[in-house]
């Protein structure tokens, strides 16, 4: 990553499928990964449902794009911050989210979890450290 890389934050606050924002946010993340910037994803409010385990979309006739989140590690996108308070309000725990990992090149390619559940105060600090915030 270059010295003058900017910090990009993608803020995801909407549930998948009911609206297209989650999918079209993911499309930006995929394209953005080629730009060698520092990328962070935030999932809060209903956005936490984007990472829910066991999504089955055959019945609604829409494409299940949840596996794509698991591929993001290969593009150096491995900072997925999920807000704990948002999970709790919705009756969800970290176990209800799919497992997403990446291989850490700085640690002998050890497999590490991409998802980090943080509380609201940590999330607010993460938000305050960005250069560019894209909201979906």
């Amino acid at each position, binding site marked *: 990553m270059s010295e003058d890389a900017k910090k990009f934050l993608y803020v995801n606050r909407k549930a998948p*499928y*009911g609206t297209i924002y989650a999918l079209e946010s993911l499309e930006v993340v995929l394209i953005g990964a080629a730009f060698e910037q520092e990328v962070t994803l935030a999932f809060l409010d209903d956005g936490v449902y984007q990472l829910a385990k066991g999504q089955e979309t055959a019945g609604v006739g*829409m494409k299940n794009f949840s596996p794509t989140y698991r591929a993001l590690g290969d593009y150096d996108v491995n900072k997925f911050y999920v807000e704990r308070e948002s999970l709790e309000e919705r009756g969800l725990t970290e176990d209800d989210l799919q497992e997403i990992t990446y291989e850490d090149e700085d640690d002998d390619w050890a497999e590490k979890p991409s998802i980090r559940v943080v509380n609201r105060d940590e999330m607010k600090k993460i938000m305050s450290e960005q250069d560019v915030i894209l909201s979906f």
Partner: protein
Amino acid sequence: MKLAIVVNEGPYTHQASDTALHFTRAALEAGHEIERVFFYHDGVNNATRLTVPPQDDRNLQKEWTELGTTHGLDMVVCIAAAQRRGILDANEAKRQGKDADNIAEGFRISGLGQLIDAGIQADRLVTFGD
């Protein structure tokens, strides 16, 4: 039973069009009659033939057109809402001095009175929106 369907949002952005399509199919399978499908607000955007969704995704305009033509559905696009959003048939394009039109097969453009009329004629009216 006679059902009227109202679709208030465009394809893909909101799930409303998908749900309305699945509902309409299920109603036809159950032997009900569809009095009319009325497209209002951004729902008029379901009627453009210019969409090119990704290969691995559904094509909602085509699905509506196929369902409509197969079952002879009256699929009405509100003229006022359509003009605001750039959905035109050949007649409207000519009347408005536009050099192109974009309406898909199976849809017709008409007035809001068709929504009220659907409410009067149908036994039930169901709205799908944002």
